[in-house]
């Protein structure tokens, strides 16, 4: 067997997520892990993918990962930048997004996402930032990919708040609410690739990342995990994928942490 480069579970997660994206996709990108995966896809096998961030930047190709959804880098490299109402009305609500790529603070087995509060809404234990664009991304995008690290705190039997609707209680719950899009069709964690059961819509493990055992997945998941009968092993990252991701992260780190060096250039002399 050939020697493989060693990699972390985080890297495997980002790379597995990037592989799910294709050249033809129009992807509404959530910040954080989704952003890294989308840009690795663009820099490897999907150079023509259209990446859209909710700040209005359409067809963006950032050299470093943005710290926020509205970094100047996104606008500089975009095909066009539209206003926020136009973004949500014409592009998202108008049905022009094929994939919404979201992260989650809390997730349940049916792909419902909580990024609003931990605990009671009116007396929260932890007040999280809230939904932002996600509630409508979740219902207006053609389908939803989710990526997050597994933990008992994050993957729970019951989420504290339905920020973004996935498959609700499962089955045909989306259709019953008049939602015509597919909803969550893919979950990529640091340990596995999951897809919803065609009937129940419960996320089911279809592929384990290299070296991961079934019990590792169960130990870090708050619901009883169902594994697919034809469980596969996720192909390890290729050298190109790993190098692309690591270079992207290194450029990003230099740009964000070294605001004194990376961002601060010479003084402007005019206008």
């Amino acid at each position, binding site marked *: 067997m050939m020697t493989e480069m060693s990699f972390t579970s985080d890297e495997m997660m980002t790379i597995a997520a990037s592989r799910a994206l294709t050249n033809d996709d129009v992807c509404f990108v959530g910040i954080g892990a989704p952003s890294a995966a989308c840009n690795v896809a663009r820099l490897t096998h999907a150079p023509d993918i259209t990446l859209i961030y909710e700040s209005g930047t359409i067809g963006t190709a950032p050299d470093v990962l*943005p710290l926020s959804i509205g970094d100047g880098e996104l606008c500089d490299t975009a095909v066009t930048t539209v206003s926020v109402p136009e973004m949500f009305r014409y592009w998202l609500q108008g049905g022009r997004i094929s994939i919404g790529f979201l992260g989650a603070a809390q997730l349940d087995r049916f792909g419902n996402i909580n990024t609003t509060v931990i605990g009671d809404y009116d007396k929260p234990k932890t007040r999280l*930032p809230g939904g932002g664009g996600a509630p409508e991304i979740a219902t207006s995008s053609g389908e939803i990919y989710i990526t997050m690290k597994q933990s008992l705190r994050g993957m729970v039997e019951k989420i504290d708040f339905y*920020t973004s609707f996935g498959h609700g209680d499962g089955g045909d719950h989306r259709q019953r609410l008049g*939602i015509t899009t597919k909803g969550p069709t893919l979950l990529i964690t640091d340990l596995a690739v999951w897809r919803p059961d065609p009937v129940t819509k419960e996320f089911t493990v279809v592929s384990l990342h290299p070296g991961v055992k079934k019990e590792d997945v169960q130990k870090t998941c708050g619901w009883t995990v169902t594994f697919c009968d034809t469980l596969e092993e996720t192909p390890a990252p290729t050298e190109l994928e790993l190098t692309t991701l690591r270079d992207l992260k290194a450029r990003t780190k230099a740009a964000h942490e070294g605001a004194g060096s990376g961002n601060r250039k010479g003084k402007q002399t005019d206008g």
Partner: protein
Amino acid sequence: MAKFLSLSEAVAENLKDGDTVAFEGFTHLIPHAAAHEAIRQGRKDLTLIRMTPDIVYDQMIGRGMAKKVIFSYAGNPGVGLLRRLRDAVENGFPQRIEIEEHSHAAMANAYEAGAAGLPCAVFCGYRGAGLKTVNPNIRSITCPFTGEELAAVPSIRPDVTFIHAQKANKRGDVLVEGIIGIQKEAVLAAKRAVVTVEEVVEDFADVHPNACILPSWTVTAISVVPGGAHPSYAHGYYARDNASYLEWDDISADRDRFHAWMEENVMKSSPDDFTGRVAGLRNE
């Protein structure tokens, strides 16, 4: 017609205790200098509206100026949570605040409805979303033509909106470039609008005909504050000071450290200090 005023005059004339106010900016062009002036003037009982309340609303909430916040994403972008806002929501410190929470789509539509003179915004949203159950201002309406159920929220009509923009011309027209966010709608939806700008130029003769321009008669007051968006950025002028956003997480984590920082960097400071803050971030 827009009046050119110092920032302290513009804020004093246009922002009163009890006002409903939007300091808008979608990551880009956030009117930090105007917000700091409002903090120095000690305005209180404000209803703060913003899609993405970040550091400036964290600062105002921490200073006890807000009675209510209307928002759709209350985080430090790319960094984490807003710690002063959390302290207010979770512990009632320094005072309890009321929150009215929406999604981005709802707020974007609500600003647009405000600018369009409509009482409410109608859109396809909030399907299956929990916010419907905790925010009584999220309701539904039936399409009279198709019978489809749609979401409805009240339009946003602030007493006053503050934005930062790249430039004004001598007549007082304002040009916004780059990520234009919700700035135009927020200005047109408000009774009064105050704009801080990087600079004033003779005219906009060289500007693209489809550029985002707010004519002078849609703006109440303009103040020239170079660097006035810092640590946010002004496209074409200076970069986002990401390090400051990261630092805010530490500063805001502790009540005493927060107050010391505010005394030093806001209360004892002036709009002129923003020029120096962006000196190292200027585009070449």
